[in-house]
């Protein structure tokens, strides 16, 4: 683990440069330690695959002192049992897949096999970024590896489920994007001040048909949706 200065008011903690659950667990464990132990004078924390950026108020924290504190917390975190991960079960309608033909051609899989493989594995949320609430999840089975689209779409519809490389994610809002669209999620990815995903979450998708998709949408609109069910 290395700690580097990043401008005047932030420290970058870096682990081995690799995408692996064991490394990422150390990132979110240190994040949890900082949040519970050092609330005062910490201005922001940005976790990523194998790094954590910690912003601080220079009026409260001296850089050397915070560096030492972060080292100490990382050691404490590694001694403890890892922070329990939340597991989210997210419905996906794979019938709403604008790139179905292209993905079948690229992977050589028929659609039911693709759906089975995409929804079988439990993914890890490595980081949020690109758009508010957009979770980078991985890793896909290598057989599902598809390149980005040659021509990015000007507007990907909100709640589209997308893949590229060994990553998958859900567009929280309409935005330009180049990932392959393989389904749509009836659950909003964020509400006014609440985000569905956070770094470290475990996520598994389950297929729903058009009718079930509409039912969930209606329940959410009518505020009768059982949000606890997704954490089942």
């Amino acid at each position, binding site marked *: 683990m290395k700690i*580097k200065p*990043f401008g005047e008011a932030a420290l970058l903690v870096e682990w081995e440069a690799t995408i692996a659950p064991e490394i990422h667990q150390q990132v979110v464990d240190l994040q949890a330690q900082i949040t519970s132990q050092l609330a005062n004078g910490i201005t*922001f*924390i940005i976790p990523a695959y194998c790094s954590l*950026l910690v912003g601080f108020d220079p009026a409260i924290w001296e850089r050397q002192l915070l560096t030492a504190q972060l080292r100490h917390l990382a050691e404490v975190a590694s001694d403890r049992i890892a922070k329990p991960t939340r597991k989210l079960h997210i419905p996906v309608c794979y019938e709403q897949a604008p790139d179905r033909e292209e993905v079948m051609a690229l992977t050589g899989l028929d659609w039911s096999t693709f759906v089975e493989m995409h929804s079988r594995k439990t993914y890890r949320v490595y980081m949020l*970024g690109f758009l508010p609430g957009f979770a980078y999840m991985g890793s896909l089975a290598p057989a599902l590896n598809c390149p980005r689209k040659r021509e990015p779409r000007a507007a990907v519809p909100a709640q589209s489920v997308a893949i590229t490389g060994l990553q998958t994610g859900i567009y929280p809002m309409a935005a330009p994007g180049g990932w392959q669209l393989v389904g749509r999620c009836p659950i909003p990815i964020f509400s006014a*001040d609440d985000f569905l995903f956070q770094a470290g979450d475990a996520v598994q998708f389950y297929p729903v048909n058009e009718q079930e998709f509409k039912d969930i949408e209606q329940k959410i609109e009518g505020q009768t949706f059982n949000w606890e069910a997704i954490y089942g």
Partner: protein
Amino acid sequence: MADVILHIEKSGLQTSIQDLGRGGVQQYGVPLSGAMDQASAKRANELVGNSLSTPVLEITLLGPRIHFRGNGQMAICGAGLSPKLNGKDVPNDRTLTFKDGDRLTFGKVIYGCRAYLAVAGKWNVHTWLGSCSASPFEASLLTPDSKPAMGDHIRIESKASVPIRNLSPPDWIAKLRMPFIKVYPGPEFEQCTRVDLAYFFSHRYRIAASSNRMAYRLEEAHFASEHMPEMISSAVLPGTIQLPPSGKPLILMRDAQTVGGYPRILQVAEADLDLLAQCKPGDTVAFYLERV
């Protein structure tokens, strides 16, 4: 106290509501946003007795036309955009009084790029995640009143007046003739070649026309990037200078995303990010390196 209404008669080039930004939610991928020149935004609020985090109008180069309903106090700081109240020149950096029916207009750009209009009182505008700043994404949904258009009204609950104050012109105006931007080494600084760094720090660069609140581009600036190892995405900040595979550095500004996959070669000093915000496309800037 009576309300003040800012009736927008013309929106100007790129007028938006900003405050000090949406801090502390970057882990959800939410850009920081907020006034590009934070010091000028704070100064304007100070002159009208508002808390420093009160929203302001950020006005870029071509100003709006605003018709006031109700009496109150305002202040304009930042760029010199020839503000006029009912056609008569009014100064920047001073507490100003307006009356019901007055009209505020802007004219020629004298210096800088972004002016900040503070109006005394509590602004009745939408807040998202603790900030009124225009969201760079889906602004019409998330911060519906943050990009005022012709015919829009901004309602402000006015408050007791403060004594009129007159501040001396800020010292960054003199620096605009030859802006020298202080930068620190970024996390991937060591990947730059010595030749590229020596060249970069001994030349001036023109700010490209495509520069905006998300990023500034520098015409003709170039670094070798072919030898740089591919990077796993990691956090970025306003002021981070990234090097995409094109070799053309990109200076991230307040509306930038929170993570990126390009080497972060340099980091602009906080105070000089405000100075950079006052440099407009076509202006030339130079950089100097300091260790943190």
